[in-house]
């Protein structure tokens, strides 16, 4: 059967990886034509790293970049987090794929609608 591979990566797996490992995994898989769904999204600094590395890999007629969509981060405003100055941002589900194959149709606070095409 021909088709596009969709990998859904769990929060547990992502939690066991360093930022650079996550970014490298995403770019390698996306460059192989896969669509990734991350149960827990990337932190803002990981998003920065992903954008930077993506830009270095863009090449004419080979790779034009990534399409990435995630819901806006949530604030985990519980008292203990505030008291101990812990990071209160909670990243959310994220979809990433090759820009040439994944196109976002519509996105709002609670819905990401995308079109996936074959290469």
């Amino acid at each position, binding site marked *: 059967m021909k088709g596009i591979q969709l990998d859904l990566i769990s929060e547990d797996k992502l939690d066991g990886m360093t930022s650079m490992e996550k970014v490298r995994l995403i770019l390698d898989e996306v460059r192989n034509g896969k669509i990734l769904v991350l149960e827990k999204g990337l*932190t*803002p600094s990981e998003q920065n790293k992903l*954008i930077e590395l993506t*830009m270095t890999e863009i090449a004419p007629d080979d790779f*034009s*970049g990534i399409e990435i969509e*995630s819901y*806006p981060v949530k604030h985990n405003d519980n008292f203990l987090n505030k008291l101990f100055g812990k990071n209160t941002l909670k990243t959310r589900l994220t979809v990433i794929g090759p820009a040439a194959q994944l196109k976002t149709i519509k996105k709002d606070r609670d819905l990401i609608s995308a079109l996936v095409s074959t290469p």
Partner: protein
Amino acid sequence: MGIIKRLGLNFTWLKRIFKKKRARIGIYGPPNAGKTTLANRILRDWTGDAMGSVSNVPHETRRARRREGVTINYNGSAVTLDIIDTPGLATKIDFHDFMAFGMNEEESKRRAKEATEGVIEAVKWLDELDGVILVMDATEDPYTQVNVTVIGNMEARKLPLLIAANKIDLPNSSPARIHSAFPQHPLVPISALEGQNIDLLYREIAEHFG
């Protein structure tokens, strides 16, 4: 004072320690949101100068430009800022998109290459800032990854962010849609091109970055 002078004491070092650092404010947003148009408007209003050229071709700004010591006055109070106009942030750059604007292949590929470098520069500047003016095109869907990323960065660092909902001179603009997407941040609906509400923006800049 006389004694201090006589003793030859110099408090320059003390002044330097306690002197308030001038805030560095980055103008961010996706390509063609009107960042350089806004930077030009601010500079023309307060320095009589301009930041850079504008165009309807995406990624016209491919190098960050910095202007130091721009003083903005509002209601008798003044705030002096360093303003950085950044290249448009993006996660994809396809040289074919530039060819649609009449550029030849070689020119388009060169622009695409420069645009990728510009995006990296814009991302790196995020670490150096004290606040951001995020320019959004009010005629477009506000939930873009660029907007989510910039807002996430500022929230994670607990730095001030002001949203400029630009292009309100266009009939299909909807600043309300942006406000409902990111209600936690102050928003000013503006037309950087025509100067609509620009005084309101200066008031917010003075309030949030002063």
